[in-house]
């Protein structure tokens, strides 16, 4: 390997401080919109005397650790679709290589001015089209008064999601749908190309995820950090291999940007999703102005217009750089403002909750209303041994509650290149029909009327949820996969998906479990979801004449304040149940919540566990929350998951 012999600049205190500051502001923007904080850094380093290639290399080297920290932070908030990030990131690498190659070819053919003109034109065109669209969309949301509403999936994204190209389909949790990777590849490629050209791939990547794939804006901006990490690692290896990385410059910027990225990521938890569009659109339009200012200089260099005086050219370039800095500062100011007002509003809400909370534990979470309905039970069975318990419990449940019962099964359609053959399909349908007939016979023996539904599905879980919606089911009853050891602790993918997507309650039944007849265990953490679970537990207790044990579990990390809140929540719930005429007790124990709920159920001989779920979907394990997942995995009795 030949030594490149690059000269690295001397750093003074002023330069270091400048980079720290720009790094901080850029980090904040990146943490919030997933990208867009780095484009000022290359010219900033160059203005300090760093050769262009060293500035680019050092910028990329600070980007990947920054993106890593940001992605991990936002993954904690459940905003990252890692699978989508990796798929897009890999094609973005190809885009970077091609973009860099194109850049070199242009430089070779038209010199520096030609290259600069190409970069500036790319800036102006992409930012005008995409930035204009993003900003217009944000404005539309604001004007329509839909800032609080859930984001809608656009028509283009709906068409893309409906596109079915066999052998190329992949499920992405952020969109809760399968999308052909043939659609994601060009998006990743364009993101990489833009990153190689203007150092901010996210100006294509984030809007494309939002408008083409239908990813919610907060998730799109968080997922962009995964793409940025992958592109950053690739870029650092490429430039590091040639010896261009000035690690001092990179780490100084990183020092500032890690403060910023944490703040930007925290900010996303307080704002409405459309704010991502506002910040991104505003930055893009201001940067567009910054680049447009210098285009005449490059046109003049290429003799395409009348020559511009050297002083004028210098002035235009300085103004352009200042406007670029302004773009970042304005973006950061919007984020800070949104963060501060979001935090204030949150504090007011908390204060209000405290003010409205009962002073003594006897007052309670209202009158346990609205009353949960239990008129329609949907049993989802796959005919395996894991569905045995669910079938038994669903029939007994319908018998004792007088609810209508429907049993459904789904024939799995294979999604590979060959698809499912006609013969295979017939066989599978016959087998599923047989399962349903067995369930019907079992129900009929107990005097229960039952309807059966057989569906074909590529994702049975989605079909279960769809039928539950169509039929207005009040509760879905299903089994739990997993046999022993570690596998037992893991909830099956279908069960997890059903709980994630269903709007109604989901009763997960281990294969050997039977109908409850002794005691209900209500797990609570004082949240809104727990309160809803309390309402349902109370209704079950009254309907089946069972006592309820309210359990709050405190972990070693909980401080005294949190413990007091836990005790109070359990006591409040107990009092509320008691007022409704339910025999209730409250207990607070120490330990891991997932394990302790299951253990306590065994100790108190509780044969039904009721707990709340945040109701989020997607994101792998975060789908259920680790506590719900552990409880379902370890419980030996049915677990009723109540959505708030």
């Amino acid at each position, binding site marked *: 390997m030949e030594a490149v012999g690059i000269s690295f600049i001397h750093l003074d205190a002023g330069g270091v401080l400048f980079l720290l500051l720009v790094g901080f502001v850029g980090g904040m923007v990146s943490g919030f919109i997933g990208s867009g904080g780095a484009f000022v850094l290359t010219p900033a380093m160059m203005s300090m005397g760093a050769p262009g290639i060293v500035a680019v290399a050092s910028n990329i080297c600070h980007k990947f650790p920054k993106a890593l920290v940001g992605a991990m932070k936002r993954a904690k908030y459940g905003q990252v679709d890692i699978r989508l990030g990796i798929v897009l990131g890999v094609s973005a690498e190809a885009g970077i290589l091609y973009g860099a190659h194109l850049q070199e070819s242009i430089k070779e053919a038209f010199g520096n001015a030609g290259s600069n003109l190409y970069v500036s034109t790319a800036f102006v065109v992409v930012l005008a089209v995409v930035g204009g669209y993003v900003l217009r969309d944000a404005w539309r949301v604001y004007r329509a008064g839909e800032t609080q509403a859930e984001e809608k999936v656009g028509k283009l994204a709906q068409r893309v999601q409906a596109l079915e190209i066999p052998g190329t389909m992949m499920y992405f949790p952020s969109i809760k749908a399968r999308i052909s990777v043939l659609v994601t590849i060009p998006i990743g490629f364009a993101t990489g190309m833009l990153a190689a050209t203007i150092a901010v791939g996210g100006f294509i990547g984030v809007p494309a995820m939002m408008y083409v794939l239908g990813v919610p804006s907060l998730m799109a901006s968080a997922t962009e950090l995964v793409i940025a990490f992958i592109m950053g690692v690739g870029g650092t290896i490429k430039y590091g291999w040639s010896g261009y990385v000035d690690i001092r410059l990179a780490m100084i910027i*990183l020092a500032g940007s890690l403060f910023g990225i944490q703040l930007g990521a925290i900010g996303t938890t307080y704002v409405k999703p459309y704010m991502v569009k506002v910040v991104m659109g505003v930055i893009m339009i201001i940067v567009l102005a910054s680049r447009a200012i210098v285009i005449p200089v490059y046109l003049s260099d290429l003799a395409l217009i009348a020559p511009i005086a050297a002083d004028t050219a210098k002035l235009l370039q300085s103004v352009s750089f200042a406007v670029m800095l302004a773009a970042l500062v304005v973006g950061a100011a919007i984020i800070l403002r949104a963060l501060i007002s979001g935090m204030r509003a949150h504090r007011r809400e908390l204060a209000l909750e405290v003010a409205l909370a009962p002073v003594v534990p006897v007052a309670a979470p209202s009158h346990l209303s609205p009353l949960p309905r239990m008129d329609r039970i949907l049993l989802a069975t796959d005919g395996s041994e894991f569905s045995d318990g669910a079938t038994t419990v669903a029939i007994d449940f319908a018998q004792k509650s007088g609810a209508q019962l429907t049993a459904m099964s789904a024939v799995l359609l294979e999604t590979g290149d060959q698809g499912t053959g006609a013969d295979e399909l017939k066989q599978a349908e016959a087998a599923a029909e047989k399962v349903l007939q067995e369930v019907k016979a079992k129900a009929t023996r107990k005097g229960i009327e039952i309807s059966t539904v057989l569906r074909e599905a590529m994702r049975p879980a989605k079909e279960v949820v769809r039928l539950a919606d169509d039929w207005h089911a009040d509760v879905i009853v299903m089994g739990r996969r997993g046999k022993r050891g570690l596998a037992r602790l893991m909830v099956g993918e279908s069960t997890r998906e059903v709980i994630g997507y269903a709007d109604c309650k989901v009763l997960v039944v281990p294969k050997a479990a039977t109908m409850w007849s002794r005691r209900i265990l209500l797990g609570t953490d004082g949240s809104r979801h727990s309160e809803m679970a309390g309402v349902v537990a109370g209704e079950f207790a009254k309907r089946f004449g069972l006592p309820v044990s309210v359990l709050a579990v405190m972990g070693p990390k909980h401080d005294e304040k949190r413990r007091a809140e836990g005790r109070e929540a359990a006591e409040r719930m107990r009092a509320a149940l008691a007022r409704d005429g339910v025999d209730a007790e409250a207990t607070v124990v120490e330990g891991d919540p997932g394990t302790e709920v299951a253990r306590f159920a065994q100790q108190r001989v509780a044969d039904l566990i009721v707990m709340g779920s945040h109701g989020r979907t997607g994101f792998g394990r975060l789908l259920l929350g680790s506590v719900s997942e552990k409880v379902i995995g370890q419980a030996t009795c049915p677990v009723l998951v109540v959505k708030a």
Partner: protein
Amino acid sequence: MANRALDAGRLVAYGAVTALLYALLFAFEDRILEVTGKGGWSFVIPMAIAFTLSYTHGTFTASFWDFLGIKAKR
């Protein structure tokens, strides 16, 4: 109260380690730049430095905002 002390301890510990790593980086800057400037497999040095500092400094900055009460909305 105990938790706050624990948070402060964590903040100071990660801050100190990060400061030490930065001090080492600048104490040996000439030597490091000489090696990394040669290119080739020496690219692992900036990568390793970046990963290490992203961990220590990343934890420090997270604790920093946390300590100031600027936390994510739960």
